[in-house]
């Protein structure tokens, strides 16, 4: 993208020669990755609920899978926004729902229990990633240390008392200039 953008910049304007380290950290990237994963999985659940239900031996649960798809998309949008932590937290809640839904499907009476078991293992793996990403993002974005007091920073070298109304001495009856009448 930067290469394309460089090509469109006017002659003489600075162009990127070499890129430095990004403000995006690995935990930001993991969070974003999980957000895109949510969107992808959500779309698949919405559009292919029948096939997923068949593959997992969960016939009759198609509507539930679609609802989970909508939930995944909402989580994905939230995770890709600046409120990443809320998005990741919602993903963990969703993971727990997924696990609770998949557990009965790994019982002996489900002929597709192998597939269901594989899906359960995947969900548990992703849950671990969600927990790691949530922890890392929370640490990264949290306010650390005791707040400093800036009670000595008045900005008035002669003190607040002397500053009160000081500008009125030379602006006794000022008013905002009209946008059509002010003369620079």
């Amino acid at each position: 993208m930067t290469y394309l953008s460089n090509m469109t910049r006017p002659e003489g304007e600075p162009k990127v020669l070499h890129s430095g380290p990004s403000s995006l950290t690995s935990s930001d990237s993991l969070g974003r990755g999980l957000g895109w994963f949510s969107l992808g999985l959500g779309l698949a659940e919405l559009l292919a609920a029948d096939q997923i239900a068949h593959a997992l031996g969960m016939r009759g649960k198609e509507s539930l899978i679609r609802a989970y798809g909508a939930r995944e998309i909402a989580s994905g949008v939230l995770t890709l926004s600046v409120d990443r932590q809320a998005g990741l937290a919602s993903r963990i809640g969703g993971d727990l729902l997924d696990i609770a839904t998949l557990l009965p499907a790994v019982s002996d009476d489900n002929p597709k229990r192998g597939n269901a078991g594989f899906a359960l293992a995947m969900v548990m793996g992703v849950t671990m990633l969600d927990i790691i990403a949530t922890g890392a993002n929370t640490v990264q974005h949290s306010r650390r240390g005791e707040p400093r007091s800036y009670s000595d920073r008045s900005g008035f070298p002669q003190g607040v008392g002397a500053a009160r109304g000081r500008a009125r001495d030379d602006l006794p009856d000022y008013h905002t200039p009209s946008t059509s009448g002010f003369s620079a």
Partner: protein
Amino acid sequence: MRALVWHGKEDIRCDSVSDPEIEHPRDAIIKVTSCAICGSDLHLFHNFIPAMEPGDIMGHEMMGEVVETGSGINGRLKKGDRIVVPFTITCGECEQCKRGNFSVCETTNRNKEMADKVFGHTTAGLFGYTHLTGGFPGGQAEYLRVPFADSTHIKVPESLSDEQALFLGDILPTGWQAAFQCDIERTDTVVIWGCGPVGQMAIRSAVLLGARQVVAIDRIPERLSMAEAGGAITINFMDESVIERLNELTDGKGPEKCIDAVGLESHVSMSQPDTLLDRAKQMVMMESDRPHVLREMIYVCRPGGIISIPGVYSGLVDKIPMGMAMNKGLTFRMGQTHVKRWTDDLIRRIEEGQIDPSFVITHTRNLSEGPEMYKVFRDKQDSCIKVVLKP
């Protein structure tokens, strides 16, 4: 040279980029000696304002020394001059500039056609603030090309340090304009929502302009302590009801003058359900800005009062109670700052010791630490209020 470059949402890098060159006779090149991260840079960091492109250099608060001038400067600047660069690029010749409405200069936005379509009519070109306002490279860099430099500069008296002068380019005149356009009377209560750098400057300006009481609203303890140091009564909106406290401070009548120094990213909180709805709408692109502060100001402002908006809004807001505003006869004043309208007066006030804007600086770092400092500033870590970067 090194520069802080936007590569995408939350992705700023300190890149090596080619040096700027004189492109027009009215250009000058400055060697940047100090620059700062502004609260409105965070709107770009979060990609809330459209029309940024990967490779754009950030920054619109900067000052430095002139190292090269174009042939059309006509002696108004020379090599070695120390200048602050206003964030608005002004031609000084168009009808708006002549009226002092510098932030809506009709000439300097080189993407005028795009701005005409989006805004109805173009506004001035801005440094480092999207291609909607010209796509001009910003000043978080070692060197900067200043277009229309014969008009777009503020000469710095030798008596002022970089730290005292730097904020003449944006946050000091922005806070001053916000308070000035309130037409403050000696009997007024002036309330400032948001105690970030612009809010802090607005507090000092309201004090200088003689308000009876100045009230500052925020939730960050260090910001509130700085506001209190500047003479404000403070309200932590996480601890108490803003409406109740303001009514209590004004004998139930409400404040005469209200200043929104928050803008489009107001805090989202469970205790303010409208902010949750705004955030949800923002995520699915049904609303671009979160106008909680505007709603609160309209509700609490005294009938006949003035609402002043220096906080940046980018597009569409929902559920603004216009009926309430109309029936209460409120006056709205807003806009990007007409920096040069105020700077001569403000330089004099700094020189006379009426105000020293350097009080707001909490972090001074090398330019190469800029990407990290964006995050520190965004997350309000380490009691950060204002970051100055040294190239």
